[in-house]
Each structure stands twice: as C-alpha cells, then as structure tokens.
C-alpha cells in the first residue's frame, strides 16, 4: 500500500541511511545550483523592505522559487490572501502528481512524512531515484532545502548591506539552476524511456511529440497554467506508445 515501505525498501533504507555522505555528494551540486536564485530572492525581498526574519520564514514555510518570486510584488501591491493563494497554487500545481508519485519514498511516521513532503522541490525530484530509501530522500531534500533557506537569509542580509548600484540586472543568476535541472531531467528521461522499454524508437518519438505539445500549450496557456494539461497529455501519449 502507498506510504508503507516494503521489507526490501526498509533494508535498503537502513543501508543507505548509514551512508549519508554518498547521498550528500549526489545532492551537493544541485544544492549549490539553487544558491544564486535564493540569494537573488533574499536581495530583492530586502529591497522590498522585508526583514531577514520574514525572508527566513518565507523560505522555511513557503519553499518554492517561482512562488516566492511571484508573491513578492503581490505583497508589495497589497493583494489579498486568496489572490496570493490562487497564484501560488496555480504556479505550484505541478507538485500534485509529483508529490503523489513520490509518496512511497517518504518516511512512514506522520511528522517526518509531512516535513519531507514539504521539502519537495523540482531539483530534489530530479535528483532522487526510484529505488531511493526514505533516508536517502530525506537527506537529498534536507540538503537542497537548507541551501535554499540559508542562501535566502544571506541574500536578505546582503540586500541591506550592498549598495543598490552594485546589483546589476543583466546577469542571469538563475541560469546555473536551469542547467542542472535540464541535466537531471535528461538523465531521468534516459533511464525511464530507454532502459526500461523494449520500444525505444516509439517511446523517443512519443517524447518528442509530447515536447511539441508542451511547447504549444505553454504558448497557448502560458507558463503557469500549462503544467497539468500538458503533463496529462504527455502521459497519455507515452502510454499509447508503450501499449
């Protein structure tokens, strides 16, 4: 049943739990890649008069790059709670299927399960592997989460100290994270489309078609609302190719 680790899963969990160093080595490059983005968020929040404590709170309780950046101007403009909730939920709706399918990897105790589920991010999802134990998943998510929170706080502090003229707008600080996420996505796709399938050509063709459909939807619906319909269509296309 969902959420109840198997005996082999537990054994693997204990084995991996004794080797957190190897899991940390896996998560470290991704954690480093999110640092510039969170630094930037902290700086921008400080410029919008957010205190270091408020940046710490939003990084700990909010923990979503796009959501945090989106709500910053909304808070400044005095938007209401439900507007903010609607925007944040729309941007992060992609986590619904991700959270559901990764729930089997989470610890069974409710408190730990909720905490590790909250620390789910795109980068952690792409770093995790299907056979990872609950302990490994916990280490991966905590590492990336901690890097995000600390960088946000440092950014908020820096935003108050660094003169505004030093902060140029022409450097894309988020690019390293995009590169790392692209690498991890391609690696995950290789594992899922090529190794596990007999029908490699048709799966690759279906993946290309799904990418084309996603591109059309992102242009039609925008980068916030395309996620759920696009993921569902891609799943259906891949399913037909595999049948």
């Amino acid at each position: 049943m969902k959420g109840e680790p198997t005996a082999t899963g537990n054994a693997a969990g204990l084995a991996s739990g004794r080797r957190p160093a190897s899991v940390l080595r896996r998560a470290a490059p991704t954690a480093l890649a999110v640092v510039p983005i969170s630094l930037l968020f902290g700086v921008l929040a400080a410029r919008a008069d957010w205190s270091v404590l408020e940046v710490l709170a939003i990084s700990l309780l909010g923990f979503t790059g796009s959501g945090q950046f989106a709500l910053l101007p909304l808070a400044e403009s005095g938007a209401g709670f439900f507007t903010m909730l609607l925007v944040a939920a729309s941007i992060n709706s992609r986590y619904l299927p991700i959270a559901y399918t990764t729930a089997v990897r989470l610890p069974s105790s409710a408190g730990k399960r909720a905490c590790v589920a909250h620390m789910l991010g795109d980068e952690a999802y792409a770093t995790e592997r299907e056979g990872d134990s609950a302990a490994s998943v916990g280490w991966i998510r905590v590492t990336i989460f901690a890097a995000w929170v600390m960088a946000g706080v440092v950014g908020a502090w820096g935003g108050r100290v660094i003169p505004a003229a030093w902060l140029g707008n022409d450097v894309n600080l988020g690019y390293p994270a995009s590169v790392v996420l692209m690498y991890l996505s391609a690696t995950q796709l290789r594992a899922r489309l090529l190794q596990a399938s007999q029908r490699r050509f048709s799966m690759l063709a279906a993946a290309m078609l799904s990418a084309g459909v996603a591109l059309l939807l992102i242009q039609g619906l925008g980068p916030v609302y395309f996620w759920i319909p696009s993921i569902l269509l891609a799943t259906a296309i891949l399913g037909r190719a595999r049948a």
Partner: protein
Amino acid sequence: MSAPESMAITALFATSCLVRIAPAFLSLRFSPEAQRYLERLLPAAVFINFAVYLLYSEMVREPVAALVSLAVVGVIAFLDLLGLIGTAVLGITLYFLLIRILG
C-alpha cells in the same frame, strides 16, 4: 512581521500543504494499468515538461544562447557522455560565451 508579508508567507505555506503535504497522505487504490501510468509514465511526462519549460523560460531572455547551451546539456546528459559538474560548467560557460559573442 507586517500584514502583507505574513499573508504571502501563509499563502505559500497553505499551497505547500495543498500540493505537497496532502498528496503524501492520500491512499488511493488504482488498477495495475493506472498504477503503471502513475509510477512509470507520469514521471517521464513531468520531466519532458520540465525540459520544455526550462527551454522556454530561458529562451525568452536569451534565445540563441539558451537554446544552444541547454540543447548541448540535454544531449550530453541523455547520451551519458559527461558527469553533472562537467556538463554544468560547460553549459554555463557556453551560455555566457554566446551572450558575449552575439552581443
């Protein structure tokens, strides 16, 4: 803590409860076929959409540099030619180099 900041923090936490924490406690029964879709095909669909979203959002800013750099990174990763650190360094260098060359 002031009101708009508190509201933003509460909205993001409520979102996390809705989209990340609640699904982790859901226990739904699916047919073996639906389970296969959820465990195998849905994650692949998510990663395809990640890749397209990254390309799109970076190409809005720097079309050529982002397209070339991310395509190179994607191909290297898909063919398993280089590790994460090496590929990231290559991709980032290529991106900023192309921006400089193309002006």
